[in-house]
């Protein structure tokens, strides 16, 4: 039986070179922004929030444009959303440990040790 499926899905993903160039520029700018923000020595929670936010934007751009997820098949989206949910759940499990969370809030020593010159 001939393989009717090989070429069909690619038509929806005609490469857009201008868009690739724009995303490339944006990714480089965001990388420099991440490095610049880290030099500000923000408090750890703020630094992690900003760093994670920029990384999410960068990852989203690569996935949406370079990996053609923007306009990708619904089945691929469903599979990815399921995996993303479980991956996010796994990574938030340590925070769900209430006892440990209270320990973090009431024990600022680790932060002081991480940034010795911070707040002094």
């Amino acid at each position, binding site marked *: 039986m001939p393989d009717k499926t*090989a070429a069909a899905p690619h038509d929806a993903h005609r490469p857009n070179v201008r868009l690739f160039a724009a995303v490339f520029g944006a990714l480089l700018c965001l990388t420099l922004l991440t490095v610049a923000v880290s030099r500000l020595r923000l408090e750890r929670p703020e630094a992690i929030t900003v760093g994670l936010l920029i990384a999410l934007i960068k990852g989203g751009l690569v996935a949406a444009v370079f990996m053609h997820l923007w306009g990708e098949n619904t*089945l691929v989206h469903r599979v990815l959303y399921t995996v993303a949910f479980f991956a996010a759940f796994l990574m938030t499990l340590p925070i769900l440990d209430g006892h440990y969370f209270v320990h973090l809030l009431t024990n600022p020593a680790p932060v002081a040790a991480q940034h010795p010159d911070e707040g002094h």
Partner: protein
Amino acid sequence: MITTAMDNPDTHSGVSNAKLGVWLFLCSEIMLFATLFTSYIVLRTGASSWPWGWDALNVPLGTLNTAILISSSVTIVMAYARAYDKDVKGFRLWMGLTLLLSFAFLVVKGFEYHGEFAKGIWPSTSLFYACYFTLTGLHGIHILGGIVVNSSLLYMSFKKEHWDNPLFLGRVEGAGLYWHFVDIVWIFLFPALYLL
């Protein structure tokens, strides 16, 4: 003629089996790195102290590697664009550039590792370095895997029969998806280890 999912499963789902297979493989990779990131979060939040990346690692080299990997994501997507248009020379040029950037990434990483080993820093030095070497080492192995696949595609591009095969474009797209995934992993590794 009535076709069923068994006759042509690809049109039933709307996505080719090969592409779905690549995505499922990437899903397993997402879970692999998610477990490692979870371990990193547990170890980091539980540690009595954790060094600042700027003090412990070579941030300029890490930034350079980020730029190299982002550039390679562009070159591989350009290789796909050339393959899409059946531009053989263009494909070879962009895929060759991708391979060059991949090796550049590993060389820079090698310099970084060499600098750390020279200072007597090993995975057993501290929890931070254990996380650093494990995460970047596994990522490096993925880069090597990508180099093998991309080299195979470059080699195949020199044989006309592959260009006549409609599956070739799908293979280039699959390799590209994998390479972009490796790029995304680094996009998260870089701030987590070097900057925060």
